[in-house]
């Protein structure tokens, strides 16, 4: 069997050290350009770990992935349509509460997530103590502490990435529970969404986006007709409106 290349995505709030981590991992093996049709910078790099090739994408920093902007759309589409083997969510350890919003959104989209708790040096200076094992248990995915600028924690991160791409880590991403009214609507929509998107996309997440009236997702889905039946998307959206 041919050796394959694994794809890693870097997501996170603005200014959490994604590009710093990207540079540490890729060194000079990187290039930048624009996303097709977007004025959002696309940075892609490569690295080798234990004789295996990895491609890593530095996604734009965003507070959310609900596509309020071109940046959010690019990040969302990459996670949903390119299905990276691992998504690294880079969090600022000194502003955990704020950063967890995006982390929880990513956990609704994919179960192949590693949380990078970056700026641990700053957190220490500020006297912030984080129970990493407990955070990992609650989120249901690995959490790796980092100080990317000082190249601290990189080895543990790479080892965790390698184990995840080899299927050696079982994750159980936290499922955010919504109000009863919303959960009832999700339950109604789920079978339909599963019928239309199959195993291809995270059904609960798609149902939530449809309930939110996310038309940009609908358009994105319709432009991926190989994965998604065109009429199906419109039909599912129609049903979302009626429940």
């Amino acid at each position, binding site marked *: 069997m041919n050796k394959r290349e694994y794809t890693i995505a870097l997501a996170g709030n603005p200014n959490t050290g994604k590009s710093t981590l990207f540079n540490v991992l890729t060194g000079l093996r990187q290039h930048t350009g624009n996303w097709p049709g977007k004025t959002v910078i696309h940075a892609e790099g490569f690295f080798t770990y234990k004789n295996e090739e990895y491609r890593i994408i530095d996604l734009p920093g965003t*507070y*959310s992935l*609900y596509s309020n902007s071109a940046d959010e759309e690019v990040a969302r589409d990459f996670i949903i349509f390119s299905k990276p083997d691992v998504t690294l969510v880079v969090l600022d350890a000194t502003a955990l*509460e*704020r950063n967890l919003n995006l982390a929880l959104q990513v956990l609704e989209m994919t179960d192949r997530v590693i949380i990078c708790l970056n700026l641990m040096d700053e957190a220490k200076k500020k006297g912030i103590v984080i129970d990493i094992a407990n955070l990992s248990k609650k989120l249901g995915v690995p959490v790796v502490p980092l100080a990317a600028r000082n190249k601290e924690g990189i080895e543990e991160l790479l080892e965790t990435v390698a184990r995840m791409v080899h299927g050696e880590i079982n994750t159980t991403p936290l499922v955010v529970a919504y109000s009863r009214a919303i959960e009832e609507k999700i339950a109604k929509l789920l079978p339909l969404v599963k019928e239309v998107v199959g195993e291809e996309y995270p059904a609960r997440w798609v149902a939530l986006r449809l309930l939110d009236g996310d038309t940009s997702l609908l358009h994105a889905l319709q432009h991926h007709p190989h994965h998604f039946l065109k009429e199906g998307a419109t039909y599912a959206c129609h049903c979302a409106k009626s429940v």
Partner: protein
Amino acid sequence: MTEAKLARLSDANPGERFRITTLKIEGTMKRRLLDLGFVPGSEITVLQKSPLGDPTAYRVSHTTIALRKEESDHIYGERIGNE
């Protein structure tokens, strides 16, 4: 607390703190404000207004975020005095 007593975030002055009660708006702008951390119950500090008075910088959940008046106008809550 009665609705009548609620102030707008846009009325709060630099140095003041403000606790959000509600966002009186729907749609994408509400979504965006929530994503930026302007959620009911959270405490905001007004940092400074730009020289022309708009936008204004706020400290919200350990990050500085600037809002235009047309955004902060929709955020209602209590002014809880100076730092």
